C-alpha cells in the first residue's frame, strides 16, 4: 500500500518490484512453520517408537526371538508367543488383498476408461469412497449378522465335497478367517480403487490413442497397454491396501474368533496382532503390557516394511510416467 501508484509510462518500465519487508517476514514464518510441521511428524514417530520400544524392551529381553515362534499365550503361567497372531494377520490380510485388490482394480478400470457417462462415474466414485467412512465396528457387526450366516451353508458344502483340501478342512461355526477376510476386502476396497484410479489417469492419453490407432480393441488396449503402463502405481495401491488390512482392529476382533491356533482352513477361527493388542491392553498387568508392547513393535515393523515398499513403488511409478 505504501508504494505510490506510478504513471502508466513508468509502470511499463518497472513491471516487478523487490519484495517488501513484510513479504520477507511472512515468507520466513511460513517456511519455518512448514519445516517445524515436517519435523514434528518425524519426532512423533520417534517418540512412539521410543515409548513402545522402552516399554517393550523388558519383554524383548526376557522372551527374545522365541516370542516370534512360540504359539502359547498363557498369562497365568507367563508363557507368551505370537506366531499364531503373525500367521493370522498375514493370512487374513493376504486373502483380503486378493479379493479386495481384484475388485478394486476392476472398479478403477471401469470408472476411468469411459465405460460410464462422467456424471454417473462421479456418483460411483463417491459411493466407493463412502465405504471408507463406515466405522470399523459397523463392519464387524455386519460381518457377524450378515456375512457369517450367509457363508455358513457355503462353508458346510465345501467341507463336505472338498474337505480333503486343507483350506476347506473345517466347517464354519461362527467367527472365522473367511468372514474376516471378506469384510477386510470391502474395507480396503476404497483405498485400492482410489489410488488405482489415479494411476490409470496418469497414463497419457496419447498412449491410449496410439494403441487404438494400431487397431487394438478396447479390451486389448486396457489389458495390454494401459494396465502394464500403470502397473507400478496399481501395485503401490495394493501394497497400501495391504498395509491397511494389517492394522485393522475392531472388525477383526469381532469376526476372527480370537483362537491362538495355526490352521490352513479358511473356516477355522484364527487371531491377529491388532486384535490381540486391542482386547488385552485394558486389563493387562505389568508383565503383560511389556509383551504386548513387544507384539506392537512386531506389528509396527510389519506395517512399516509394507508401507515403505508401497511408497517406494509409487515414487518409482510417477518417475517413470514423467520420463
Amino acid at each position, binding site marked *: 500500500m505504501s508504494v505510490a501508484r506510478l504513471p502508466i509510462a513508468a509502470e511499463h518500465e518497472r513491471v516487478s518490484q523487490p519484495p517488501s519487508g513484510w513479504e520477507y517476514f511472512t515468507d520466513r514464518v511460513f517456511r519455518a512453520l512448514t519445516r517445524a510441521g515436517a519435523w514434528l511428524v518425524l519426532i512423533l514417530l520417534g517418540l512412539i517408537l521410543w515409548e513402545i520400544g522402552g516399554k517393550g524392551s523388558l519383554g524383548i529381553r526376557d522372551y527374545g526371538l522365541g516370542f516370534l515362534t512360540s504359539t*502359547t*499365550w*498363557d*498369562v*497365568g*503361567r507367563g*508363557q507368551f508367543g505370537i506366531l499364531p497372531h503373525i500367521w493370522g494377520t498375514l493370512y487374513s490380510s493376504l486373502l483380503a488383498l486378493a479379493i479386495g485388490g481384484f475388485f478394486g482394480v476392476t472398479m478403477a478400470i471401469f470408472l476411468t476408461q469411459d465405460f460410464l457417462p462422467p456424471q454417473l462415474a462421479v456418483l460411483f466414485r463417491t459411493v466407493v469412497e463412502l465405504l471408507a467412512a463406515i466405522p470399523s465396528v459397523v463392519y464387524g*457387526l455386519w460381518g*457377524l*449378522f450378515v456375512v*457369517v*450366516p450367509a457363508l455358513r451353508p457355503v462353508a458346510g458344502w465345501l467341507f463336505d465335497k472338498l474337505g480333503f483340501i486343507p483350506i476347506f478342512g*473345517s*466347517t464354519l*461355526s*461362527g*467367527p*472365522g478367517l473367511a468372514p474376516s477376510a471378506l469384510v477386510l476386502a470391502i474395507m480396503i476396497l476404497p483405498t485400492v480403487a482410489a489410488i488405482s484410479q489415479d494411476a490409470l489417469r496418469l497414463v497419457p492419453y496419447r498412449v491410449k490413442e496410439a494403441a487404438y490407432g494400431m487397431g487394438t480393441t478396447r479390451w486389448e488396449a486396457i489389458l495390454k497397454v494401459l494396465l502394464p503402463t500403470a502397473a507400478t502405481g496399481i501395485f503401490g495401491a495394493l501394497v497400501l491396501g495391504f498395509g491397511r488390512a494389517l492394522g485393522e482392529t475392531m472388525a477383526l*476382533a*469381532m469376526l476372527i*474368533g*480370537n*483362537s*491362538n*491356533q495355526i*490352521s490352513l*482352513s479358511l*473356516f*477355522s*477361527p484364527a487371531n491377529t496382532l491388532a*486384535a490381540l493388542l486391542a*482386547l*488385552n491392553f*485394558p*486389563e*493387562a*498387568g505389568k508383565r503383560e503390557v511389556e509383551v504386548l508392547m513387544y507384539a506392537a513393535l512386531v506389528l509396527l515393523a510389519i506395517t512399516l516394511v509394507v508401507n515403505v515398499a508401497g511408497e517406494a513403488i509409487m515414487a518409482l511409478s510417477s518417475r517413470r510416467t514423467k520420463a
Partner: protein
Amino acid sequence: MNRLMIACLLVGLSLGSIGSSATAQDSVRLTGSGATFPFPLYSAWFKSFSAKHKGVTVDYQGKGSGAGIRDFVNRTVDFAASDAAMTDEEISKVPGGVQLLPMTGGEIVLAYNLPGNPKGLKLPRDVYSQIFLGKITKWSDAKLKAANPGVNLPDTDITVVRRADSSGTTFVFTNHLAAISDEWKKGPGVGTTVNWPKSDKIVASPKNDGVSATIKQTPGAIGYLEFAFAKFAKLEMAELQNKAGHYVAPGTDGGAAALASVTLPADLRAWVPDPDSAKAYPIATYTWMMFYKESKDPKKAAALRQLVEYCLDEGQKMSTQMGYIPLPANVVAAVKKASASIQ
C-alpha cells in the same frame, strides 16, 4: 477441504472449553471406573441417585475390572469397581488404605443356541467342564442325552464361545471350573484370561455383548456370560448341577442361596467357587466397589457415603429386576458399617 477441517477443529476446541468450564460450579462430580459385569445395574443406580440428589453427578465408565483397579491405584477416579476385588499387592499400592465393599451379586450362566430352542437344558457338572475343555464335542453325546431325557438333541458340533478380552467374568467362571474339575485346574487354570484348549470349535468374542451376539448367530453354540446380559438378549440358559447334585436354574433364589453359603471375613473379600447349599446356583459371585480411606476431599467422601447408602437401601430393590442378586440382609448391615471408613 482443509479449511473445513480447521473449522471443525476450532468448533471442537471451543466446545471442549465450554464443557470444562461448566464443571467449575459448586457441585460434586464423582467419577468411577471398572467392572463391566455390573455396569447396567450401576448405571441405573447412579442415574436415579443423581436424580434424587441435586448437585451430585456420578459418572461411571465400564472399562473392565483391571482397568478400574489401575485407575484407582493411579488416583484418577473417586471410586472403582471390580469383579475380582483387589489383591493384597494392589491394596498395598494405595497409601491410606482401601475400603472394599461388596455391592451386588451376579451369576454366570451357560447360554446355548439349539434348533427348536429347548428350554432348561440340564448340564451335569462333569459334562459342562468337559465341554469347555473341548472333550465333549457333539450335542448328541450320550452323557448329555442321559441327563436330558425327552429333549431332542441334534447331532451337531458344540461351538464353545468364550470371552476374548481379559475379564472378571472369565475369572469367576474359571475359578468355578477349577473347583469342580482337576483336569481344568491343571490345564487352563484360573485367571482373567487363560490358555484355552486349541480347537476349531472354541471361538472368542469381545465383551459380554459380543459373546451373546455370537451365541445368537451360531447354531450349536454354548458360552458363558453374565446373567443380566443373557436375560436381556433372551438367550436360553442351562440348569447346572450344583455340589449337592441338584439341577438349579439361574435366578435370584439360586444366586442368593449361593451367596448366603459363605460368611464374609472382616475385609469383605470372599469367593464362592462351589457353594454347598442344595438350592444354590453353582456359579455366583459378589462384585465390589473400592473407595479410598483417605481421599483428602471430605465433600466427595460424604457424597460417596451417601451414594453407598442409597445403593444399599434403594439400589438393592432394583437388583432382582435387572438380573442381579440382592445382598443378604446381614451383608447389607456389614457393608453399611464398613462404609463409615470412606473418608
